[in-house]
């Protein structure tokens, strides 16, 4: 049977065309425009070489701060979501926990709301004078703990990252639970017979067998973290000042100022970073090296 005739490539044509036109072309075009002075104020577009990249990387530009924030956000939220997700998954697969499925559903539920709505919910919860959290702390007599969560320069970034973890950890938990359930219980039975403790079983059975899942989660969290926009835009819009600005909020800022070349340059920087990681990302999605 002729495979090429039976499975004609043009069946994939529509998907490839849409993706090419609206995702790939803008990426390439964006890189091309990052070497120009494209903006909303003049019709002419001139080639300026690496000037935009120099503006980003030279001296102590605000753009470097955005890139640093993006990396910090990515690293911290990846670690927090993985730790919480893993711990919750381990806890909520134990037989002695009552209403396991109910807990799982509750903890997963923020996942279905948009980042924007989650951001708005917490903007009201964390309001310094009328917000629920500060009211609650004051009612316990803990006035000292009531902070300006989203306006205090030192508090704001940890707050944003915590809210993001609140929303994202349930997803990670569900993925890990699926991984845990695919581990054959016989391993644990054998280990129990040999007198292994909970932590020994965790280190020697659970963790090695979860490795592909954990790699996957890390990839998910890192690619999300690098591209984060909605959550930060709705919680702080990058403020106060530029304390919580990340690459994608900066792109939007430059875009709305009409500073299109700078917007596309920042976007391209992000593109190159992810492109450098792409091989590992795709490999981890297929993870042929370990088969659970």
């Amino acid at each position, binding site marked *: *049977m002729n495979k090429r005739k039976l499975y*004609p490539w043009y069946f994939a044509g529509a998907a490839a065309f849409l*993706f090419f036109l609206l995702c790939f072309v803008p990426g390439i075009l964006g890189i091309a425009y990052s070497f120009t002075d494209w903006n909303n104020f003049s019709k002419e577009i001139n080639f300026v070489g690496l000037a935009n990249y120099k503006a980003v990387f030279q001296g102590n530009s605000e753009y470097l701060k955005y890139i640093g924030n993006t990396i910090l956000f990515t690293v911290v939220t990846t670690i927090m979501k993985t730790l919480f997700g893993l711990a919750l998954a381990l806890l909520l697969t134990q037989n*002695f926990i009552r209403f396991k499925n109910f807990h799982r559903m509750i903890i997963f539920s923020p996942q279905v709301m*948009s980042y924007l709505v989650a951001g708005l919910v917490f903007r009201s919860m964390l309001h310094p004078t009328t917000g*629920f959290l500060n*009211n609650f702390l004051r009612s316990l007599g803990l006035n000292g703990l009531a902070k300006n969560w989203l306006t205090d320069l030192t508090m704001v970034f940890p707050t944003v990252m915590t809210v993001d973890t609140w929303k994202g950890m349930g997803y990670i938990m569900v993925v890990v639970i699926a991984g845990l359930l695919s581990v054959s219980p016989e391993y644990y039975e054998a280990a129990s017979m040999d007198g292994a403790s909970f932590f020994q079983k965790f280190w020697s059975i659970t963790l090695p067998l979860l490795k592909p899942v954990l790699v996957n989660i890390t990839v998910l969290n890192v690619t999300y973290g690098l*591209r984060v926009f909605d959550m930060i835009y709705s919680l702080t819009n990058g403020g106060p000042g530029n304390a919580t600005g990340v690459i994608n909020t900066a792109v939007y800022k430059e875009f709305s100022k009409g500073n299109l070349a700078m917007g596309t340059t920042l976007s391209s920087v992000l593109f190159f970073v992810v492109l450098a*990681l792409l091989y590992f990302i795709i490999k981890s999605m297929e993870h042929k090296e370990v088969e659970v």
Partner: protein
Amino acid sequence: MRKTGKIIGRILGNVVAMLISLIVIIPLVVLFLNSFKTSGEANRMTLSLPKEWMFENYQTVIEQGKLLSSFFNGLLYAVFSVLIVVIVVSAAAFVISRNPKGINRFLYYFIISGIALPINNVALMKVLQALHLVNTQIGIILLYAAINIPLSLFLAYGFIGTIPREIDEAAVIDGCKPSQLFLRVIAPLLRPIVSTLFVLDFMSVWNDFTMPLYYLNNSRKWPMTLAVYNFFGAFEYSWNLVAADIILTLAPVLLVFIIGQKYIVGGVSAGSVKG
């Protein structure tokens, strides 16, 4: 001694589980209660029940927030873009998964690279302008279809691999052409993955905020997310109305989530565990 330790551990485990569930759910409960309070009562955000249940908050919000039109906009964008995704992705996944060589292999990796690579929204504006799609509903639908293709293709590709090839062979012996093979034989077998894609992509489109922010500057074309964001800006000090608005935005996805729960969890784990 060991036994008491075990019991304490079990109680502790249950307490921790309950505490975390509470931390996750409390913001949503407060929001829900607030949506029924009077403006003054809502400003002292607490967990207490409303003294008087103000159902009219919802009516006010629907009228003032132009929620009906943005609700239907959101529905339009989600349903049509998901339909496009499901159709083009199942066809693509079918041929790529059956014959993953040469150009098909290239197309597969080319498309799934989009799972990770960021969209350049600034340059995308230029492309949409060239195609006369800025500020149009058809433009936003095509855009949503395009950005959801990569992950959907990845999931569908994995699923089609589980359908035995012998089915194809039998169909060919019976005289099926490629299009008949796909439409009559394979497509009906795709129901589980199509449901997963439908739920996941619907939620992703409904919840998206970036695309209308960049490409729709006409408030009559806004979906729910952008409408609620704008409403929040205008009514920041009427927490009761803001809460009602947020609850109304959440309702459709919650509904889809409850109906399609098993597909979501199935899709989430298939995407990351089986690969």
